[in-house]
């Protein structure tokens, strides 16, 4: 305890005014500002957001960053490996290499050259095992594709089987995938939220019937519905989107329903009712906004499903019409050459993973930001 003697003249009463008493010492922040501040302090979420913004920008502008169109074919430059000046150490040096083995060193050499059509001047070979120890001889051939094809310009992500520039296609695909993810999620949010909200809010018989309807909807396989959609609307983004919207919202409806069942007897809802608020107002102004956090999280779960669903449709040949590409179709197309031209798969796969991770981290951040428990 401090022991100094306080001076006498400090012991005079002071007037404390009412307004001062009621002053809130915290700065005034709106709910959203408040949430945003918390979000901003969440490093992961901000990184996620940044990644998404960058990907979005790349999707918007990436295809125009070089001179190749996404549909521009040239079979003479098919399956070119990626080459970026200065990134050779990352393996993006525009060469292909392969190890060939045979009983004799010459055999292996021949095979190694044959592997790349005997274009000897562009092939460097390296003996890994000369076969003298009784094992098979092994030779690695490295083929400078760009030199062989006399290509001056570089394909940053390489080219695909039709000689289309993977860079352009990847970003165009990102565009489509982002679009599919966002639009499908949006529709599913709208329908799911409305459905779940109404079902829970009116409860009783309405709820019972609406839930049975969901059961029926769940019971009919997606695929049957989607094929019908595709036949009615022709395959394409529209039918995929609608197909997604037909059943993609079910889990959202379930979750919103659960939440609203809890919320609808909260006192602030009752208060609104005693003021004579109509159902629509209560749903819109009170119930739905308070389900927001959950809605966001669940949307983040439906985004990967949407993207993969599109990829699955492509896998069974019901996806986007040729020659459009989404990340899903690109990955699917690259899958077959996984072992020999991994670059065709690699870049779309990295980007799809980035999108998912970014969305997930951001969603986690958003959930935390909206969680009242995170408030001090």
């Amino acid at each position: 305890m401090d022991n100094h003697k306080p001076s006498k003249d400090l012991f005079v009463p002071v007037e404390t005014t009412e307004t001062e008493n009621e002053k809130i010492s915290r700065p005034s922040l709106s709910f959203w500002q408040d949430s945003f501040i918390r979000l901003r302090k969440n490093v992961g979420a901000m990184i996620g957001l940044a990644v998404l913004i960058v990907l979005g920008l790349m999707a918007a502008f990436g295809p125009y960053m070089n001179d190749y169109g996404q549909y521009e074919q040239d079979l003479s430059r098919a399956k070119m490996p990626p080459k970026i000046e200065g990134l050779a150490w990352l393996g993006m040096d525009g060469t292909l290499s392969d190890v060939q083995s045979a009983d004799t060193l010459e055999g292996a050499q021949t095979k190694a050259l044959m592997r790349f059509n005997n274009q000897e001047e562009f092939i460097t070979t390296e003996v890994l095992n000369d076969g003298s120890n009784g094992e098979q001889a092994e030779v690695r051939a490295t083929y400078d594709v760009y030199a062989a094809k006399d290509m001056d310009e570089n394909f940053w992500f390489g080219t695909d089987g039709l000689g289309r520039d993977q860079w352009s296609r990847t970003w165009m695909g990102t565009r489509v995938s982002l679009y599919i993810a966002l639009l499908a999620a949006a529709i599913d949010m709208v329908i799911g939220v409305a459905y779940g909200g109404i079902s829970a809010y009116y409860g009783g018989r309405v709820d019972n019937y609406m839930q049975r309807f969901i059961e029926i909807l769940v019971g009919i396989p997606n695929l049957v519905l989607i094929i019908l959609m595709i036949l009615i609307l022709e395959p394409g983004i529209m039918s995929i989107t609608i197909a997604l919207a037909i059943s993609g919202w079910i889990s959202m409806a379930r979750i919103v329903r659960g939440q609203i069942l809890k919320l609808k007897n909260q006192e602030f809802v009752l208060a609104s009712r005693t003021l004579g608020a109509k159902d629509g107002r209560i749903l819109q102004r009170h119930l739905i906004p308070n389900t927001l956090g959950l809605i966001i999280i669940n949307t983040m779960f439906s985004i990967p499903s949407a993207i993969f669903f599109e990829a699955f449709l492509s896998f069974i040949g019901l996806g986007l019409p040729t020659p459009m590409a989404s990340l899903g179709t690109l990955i699917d197309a690259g899958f077959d050459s996984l072992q020999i031209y991994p670059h065709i798969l690699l870049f779309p796969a990295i980007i799809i993973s980035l999108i998912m991770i970014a969305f997930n981290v951001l969603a986690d951040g958003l959930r935390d930001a909206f969680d009242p428990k995170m408030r001090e």
Partner: protein
Amino acid sequence: MTRYIIQRLIYMVITMFLIATLTFFLMKFLPGTPLSAADKLSDEQQAVVLEKYGLNDPVPVQYFNYMVNLAQGDLGISFQFDNREVTTIIMERIGPSVQLGFQAMIIGTIIGMLLGLVSAIYHNGIMDYTSTFLAVLGQSIPSFVFAGLLQFYIGVKFGWLPVALWEGWEYTILPTISLAIFPIAIAARFMRTEMLEVMGSDYIVTARAKGVNKVGVVFKHGLRNALIPLITVLGPLAVGLMTGTLVIENIFAVPGIGEQFVKAINMNDFPIIMGTTLLIAFLFIFIILVIDLLYGVIDPRIRLAEGE
């Protein structure tokens, strides 16, 4: 309880009936006939063949016949596999799918839950970030890419496990792992969220105040309470996995129902589409019922009779 189950079973029958009806009529919109050589046959010849399957009757009559047969447990015969009973075909194919789905669910749930638990226990620690990252990764890599890599490296390169085919237990390992990735990711993420929520509740503090150690708190007190939302999402997912996943079945050459179903749709094999649809729908509704019953087991507060 029994009463409740009976009530639910009645609902189930009604729902199944509606699903059967809806699917039946939807199928009538599917283009084309089930004939495999439609382009080779004259219209008269086609009519003759269609007659055999009763496809020349008016749709309501077909519907009536189908329903009558269905009530007797007869799903009809397949179009693409001449004369083979749909029931037999589904029975043959469902086995591997269910086995894989089941194994994947078990592994997925256990590993996923452990990852989620680790995350929750070491909240915001390096373990948390690692396991969350793994979970998100599992969610973002398409399963077929993963399956392809597994097959190539584990099967071909290292030769540790069979590459594909369906000839014994060891053949199920790779497809099971590939299938399990997604449930692992989902389970881990849900577990983490729920566990964090639960760990903040009063009874956990009570338990800690008793001197129970962290592991005891998590397993004895936290787990069961965090389980409800988990089974809510995992239930339908389990049905999805057990009723076959075309992609994994194709890659590992598993004679499962997923591949069969897609082919049936492509081939307009109505009886198989119908049969499989009904089976999947049944499993879904059944799993929902099981989940509802499980709720009661896990959480004694939930009394079923008050469900409606």
